[in-house]
């Protein structure tokens, strides 16, 4: 069974830095694997432990630097890593990104059973790529997945939190599962894992390889464009309480209308 995990390198949102012009200072921000993608990767590793024949391919689109998270994924237990990197990909919105992923998967990993991915990325937070990819590959999907109970070549059984319900679905492969919950297992790779991972060569593919036209990717291929970006101003008129702290909090607690 071939399992694909799509991963994205994101800036650490705990460490946001701004340039003087109020742009994100990406060059000086730490980068890491998108936490939701790590949940997906952990579930893939859990599936592999259960079904020895499972084979995990991690795919990431990004600059050369994204090799860091691919190496991390290999050290954690992935078997194969693909980097989709090309200057022409820069500025891709969710539609263009999904087209790049779909074309690459069709060409380099067509015999997959399941694609696991994070429900969202913490930097963009659109939640659109899993669905767009499912549509482009013409396969079914489950989103907001909290647990994967079983998976084989034919089907997966997974649960989804939906309003106040937990729904358990059987879904035929090939399919996409987008993870929202942490996996109870999270293996932190050790030095020897990284040494082992170094033996696996990261495959790198460019625009020409995947067979898309440059008008379909990047800024040109993206139907959406940022017209303006600004930092929201916080307009709180904060009053400082300088004494009788506990008493003041108690007053707030007593005064609040609980109806």
């Amino acid at each position: 069974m071939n399992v694909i995990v799509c991963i994205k390198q994101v800036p650490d949102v705990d460490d946001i830095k701004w340039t003087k012009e109020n742009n994100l200072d990406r060059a000086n921000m730490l980068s890491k694997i998108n936490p939701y993608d790590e949940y997906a990767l952990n579930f893939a590793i859990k599936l592999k432990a259960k079904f020895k024949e499972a084979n995990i391919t991690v795919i990431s689109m990004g600059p050369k630097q994204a090799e860091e998270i691919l190496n991390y994924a290999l050290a954690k237990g992935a078997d194969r890593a693909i980097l989709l990197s090309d200057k022409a990909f820069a500025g891709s919105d969710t539609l263009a990104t999904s087209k790049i992923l779909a074309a690459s998967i069709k060409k380099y990993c067509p015999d997959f059973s399941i694609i696991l991915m994070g429900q969202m990325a913490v930097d963009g937070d659109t939640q659109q790529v899993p669905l767009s990819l499912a549509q482009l590959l013409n396969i079914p999907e489950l989103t907001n997945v909290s647990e994967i109970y079983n998976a084989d070549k034919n089907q997966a059984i997974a649960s989804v939190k939906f309003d106040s319900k937990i729904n358990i679905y059987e879904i035929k492969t090939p399919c996409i599962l987008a993870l929202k919950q942490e996996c109870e297992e999270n293996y932190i790779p050790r030095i020897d894992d990284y040494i082992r991972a170094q033996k696996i060569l990261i495959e790198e593919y460019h625009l020409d390889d995947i067979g898309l036209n440059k008008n379909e990717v990047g800024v040109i291929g993206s139907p959406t464009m940022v017209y303006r970006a600004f930092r929201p101003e916080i307009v709180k008129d904060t009053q400082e309480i300088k004494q009788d702290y506990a008493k003041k909090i108690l007053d707030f607690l007593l005064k609040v209308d609980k109806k």
Partner: protein
Amino acid sequence: MKKILVFGEINLEDNKIEQVTFELISKAKKLVFEANNLKKDEQYFVEVVFVASYLVDDEIKKAYKAGADKVVLIKDSAFDVFYSTVYADAFLEYFEKNPAEVILFPATIKGRAIAPRVTVQLDTGLVADCTEAEFIVKNDKLYFAPTRPTFGSELMATILSKKVPYCATIRSGVFKAEFVYCDNGEFFEYTPISYHEDRIKLVRSIDDKEKNVVDFSNAKVVLCGGYGLYANKSDEYYKKLKKIAKITDSHFAVTRKVVDFNLAEAKYQIGQTGSTTEAKLYVAFGVSGAIQHIQGMKNSKTIVGVNIDENAEIFKYCDYKIVADAKKVIDDLLAYFDIKQ
């Protein structure tokens, strides 16, 4: 006539229209007025489209009152079960015969699943989770210009689309539903060819209550403990705060870091990956104010922060700030109750 289309959402349990749909209709109506003012030669109207097995008359009336000029029902009994593929394909079949300039989808679980399937097939853009929307005129052309938060709300971006239809998902609770228009309008029922989804099967549905979750959606008072309450390698102060919450009939909550360090259960977590609250009173004890946490509580009415660091990020969002050791304040609060009891 040009059209702003609202994708209507129905609760499958009681077959009533979800509140977010009315919010989107009222916003669409305002956008129509805006567009009609900016370009007098192009007149817009609001159409709301439901993919459902049926709709009762009273609910349709409410849609008109919220601002819909036309209500469309794409009708089939297959829609009693939700599948993104089935809903998207039925909607597209209708849409291709009845196009619109703008489509607004609710940013709900269902809306978020349908919208990308629709826009990918139309090969157009989709702007996610918008919190504002307007029309702008550029080179004598009218553009729909939605704005969305990104980077955990640290940055707002207004995003245009090069292609039509202009599509966006809009969060619930952002715009106000206003039932101020007349209660009738055009109605159209559309019967699609039938669609099936035999690749997915719902095998079981369990009440989430078994999973022991805390419902913060109706919490009036939330007392939240951050990592600043951690002392002497013990969860003592989280327990103390929980006790105060119990005495005062409030909700006890914590931040992500507290859960990560196993000092409280995940069900109490407020923030991007936990629950969201719009409490009347939110008191943060020893909370630094990471943006993911702010996401989950910033819409609370009165926010009080207690932190020993006078430059703590949380204070930017507070109505009242207290620069003090939150642990000491908790002890003082407990002392009040001990006297009374």
